[in-house]
């Protein structure tokens, strides 16, 4: 099939950026969306032009590096799917596809479709861990963990940190990302000792990075490629409020 691409091109973070219209020809429906970009880039290189810069690595939906806003949706039209797992079966001959980088003040553009998501690392630094040094652990089966809670913790921990939740949110809020980590660790007995400071510190860092507030529209959950549940945000709010009321300063 033949497609028209409208792709965001921006030389660096200081450049203003603009849409460029490109043709993608002889695209097979079996290709992944990024393989289609490989073909377009190969063509650009052969014509002596600069290829489109985009982030990608594992190409199997787990590393969280790919990050394209496709036709107005984070990671494109398929639910529960990263850009790298989206396949060209989702489109038809003659379609025009608009591709933008994540749009959020806290994720500045580096080049074209590549953005800087280091703010997420700094949020984890603020408390997204359990303070246990190597070599201090007791036997793994010493503390039984309720399977229901362990499963919920796993579902939250499945977050790949791609930033689609932020890109999908009209406020550019990072609440789904933050709540997934807070939930995972609050649900497990190992995470209990630090649960109050964790919720407070991670939220404070999130605010500091310039992410917006949550207004419970649920766009994050709808666009999350790992289908992280909105109930995690409810749990974060509970942890945060509880910590604010009872934590000893």
């Amino acid at each position, binding site marked *: 099939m033949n497609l028209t691409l409208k792709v965001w091109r921006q030389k*660096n973070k200081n450049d203003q950026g603009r849409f460029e219209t490109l043709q993608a020809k002889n695209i097979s429906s079996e290709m992944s969306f990024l393989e289609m970009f490989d073909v377009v880039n190969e063509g650009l290189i052969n014509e002596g032009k600069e290829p489109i810069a985009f982030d990608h690595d594992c190409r199997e939906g*787990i590393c969280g590096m790919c990050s394209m806003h496709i036709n107005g949706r984070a990671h494109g039209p398929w639910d529960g799917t990263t850009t790298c797992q989206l396949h060209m079966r989702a489109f038809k001959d003659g379609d025009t596809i608009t591709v933008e980088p994540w749009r959020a003040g806290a994720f500045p553009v580096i080049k074209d479709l590549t953005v800087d998501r280091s703010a*997420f*690392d700094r949020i*984890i630094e603020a408390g997204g861990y359990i303070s246990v040094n190597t070599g201090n652990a007791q036997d793994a089966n010493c503390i039984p963990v309720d*399977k229901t809670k362990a499963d919920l913790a796993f579902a939250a921990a499945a977050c790949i940190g791609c930033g689609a939740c932020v890109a999908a949110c009209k406020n550019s809020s990072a609440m789904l990302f933050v709540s997934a980590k807070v939930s995972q660790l609050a649900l497990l007995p190992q995470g209990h000792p630090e649960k109050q400071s964790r919720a407070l510190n991670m939220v404070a860092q999130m605010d500091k990075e310039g992410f917006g507030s949550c207004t419970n529209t649920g766009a994050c959950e709808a666009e999350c490629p790992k289908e992280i549940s909105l109930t995690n945000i409810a749990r974060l709010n509970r942890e945060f409020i509880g910590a604010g009321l009872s934590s000893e300063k």
Partner: protein
Amino acid sequence: MFDAKIPAGPLNSKWEDYKGHCKLVNPANKRNLEVIIIGTGLAGASAAASLGELGYKVKAFCFQDSPRRAHSIAAQGGINAAKNYQNDGDSVFRLFYDTVKGGDYRAREANVHRLAEVSGNIIDQCVAQGVPFAREYGGLLSNRSFGGTQVQRTFYAAGQTGQQLLLGAYSALERQVALGNVKMYNRHEMLDIVKIDGKARGIIARDLITGELERHFGHAVLICSGGYGNVFFLSTNAMGSNVTAAWKATKNGAYFANPCFTQIHPTCIPVSGDHQSKLTLMSESLRNDGRIWVPKKQNDTRKASDIPEEERDYYLERRYPAFGNLVPRDVASRAAKERCDAGYGVGTSKQAVYLDFAAAIERYGNIEVGKRQMTNVSKEDIIKLGKEVVAEKYGNLFDMYAKITGENPYELPMRIYPAVHYTMGGLWVDYELGTTVPGLYSLGEANFSDHGANRLGASALMQGLADGYFVIPYTVGNYLADEIRTKAIPTDHPAFVEAENKVKETINKFMTIKGSKSVDFFHKKLGKIMWDKCGMARNEKGLKEAIEEIKALRAEFWKEVRVPGSADEFNPELEKAGRVADFLELGELMCIDALNRRESCGGHFREESQTDEGEAQRDDVNFSYVAAWEYKGDGQYELHKEPLEFVECKPTQRSYK
């Protein structure tokens, strides 16, 4: 120089003994000792966190935008540990024995034993970090079995075990970043090692956003940069996975061991066309419940559902009744290739076999019916219940398969074919994980030591974390204890200047060739040579041809490659060019090594060396050694042999029948 430094004494007390006698560094001195870590996968992240906790000044580098992206994240199935929670006869010795045997007696006994010894600590550590492993209803940890073993010792988190373990190590790493013990350099690529007076003393790194070259000093440098499977272009590795860090080490005097030992994983989604950029693994854990088969008739074009039970050949169960579908990866891969080459392949390409879950779905459905004490249950309801169980175990894998192929694996059997997955070879290291360059260490998949000629499933995660959490904190201390008087060397030292100039020159060369072909063009060509002639089966003629073809391709690359853009900006094509240039050298060495090893062992199958039944034929008399190659200039390598001694596991011809 070439001493494996294996401690004396009985196998099961070597590590205890080493820990009791290695040198220590006092806390005040640790603060002045700097350690550079390349790569932030399981090995790199766990090492960075652990050394940071100890008080060393750590600088960690990754080319991705965050340490959490490292390709360990994509490991699916699980991690082995000799916990014997299942009471099924497991022990440290048995895990050790299975690993040495699974590696076809080409691994170093002392290293493997240590790996088995610390395996239990890894699970403890990860649980303490909040890694949400799968659990039973009683709240205790759940286990599954993996290929090449007869016990259940694999811990897992659905089909995302690598992700959960890496996020655990990443959290620990970020905690040390916050505490100021680790400085993280994201989107940085190491492009050379700096050696002063024969010791590794730092690196040259490129800031991938600005293109600036940076000099970094370290009292020791740890290469934790993963494997080199991408030399084949198509593999299950991430697009950015590369050999560059390990290769720069090689060119600076570190020996590269057993480069031809490549693991071709049996269960991957088959290639669909020329556009393919990578291959996707379907975890080996699926072989717990999936049955592998092909039609009994050659060139059978019927749909799977139209082929009755008696016309199906469950060839692994037929040929290897003791292990069945759970034979080790090398055996399963070769068997699939043999069936397809003989004309029994399925799908449009005929380069695939079926992995069928119908029997498992029905079995699990019946178990659920029993558990819930249901009566008068229809076949459909049993199937429905069975699908729910299978979805809980393998849901994410089934979803992944459906997205890529457009087929529903709950209804149709999966089509699978072997693909390049892991590389057992890597930088030669001694018992302390030190390379042949003092101060230069290698951890995880980047080194060669623990898996011999074939890695068993769920052992890579174990090795990466063992090296990073439990081995390097002791062994690097043993080296650094003698470095406490070495002040940080200023980076205007001539060795840094010279190394940077060399890197600059190479980059400049890439930018000025302005040839007519893209980097990918060369990478794909190299991959095809490697797959055809140094892939699942190798022979003397093919390998000799491959060496010549690679030399010619390398010459063409340096004349014809086109790198667009400039060097002082974010330029992914320039990054790729550097990596492919290194693959073009490594590929040749892999063929040289494969040519030298005139025996079949593990993942290395030399057609000239097979039994009457077509199984791999090892040659212990002539090849029971580690082949460690020393770089001697373009295309020139000198072979050093480290003899392997087996005290506890006497080599036998592996049999999984």
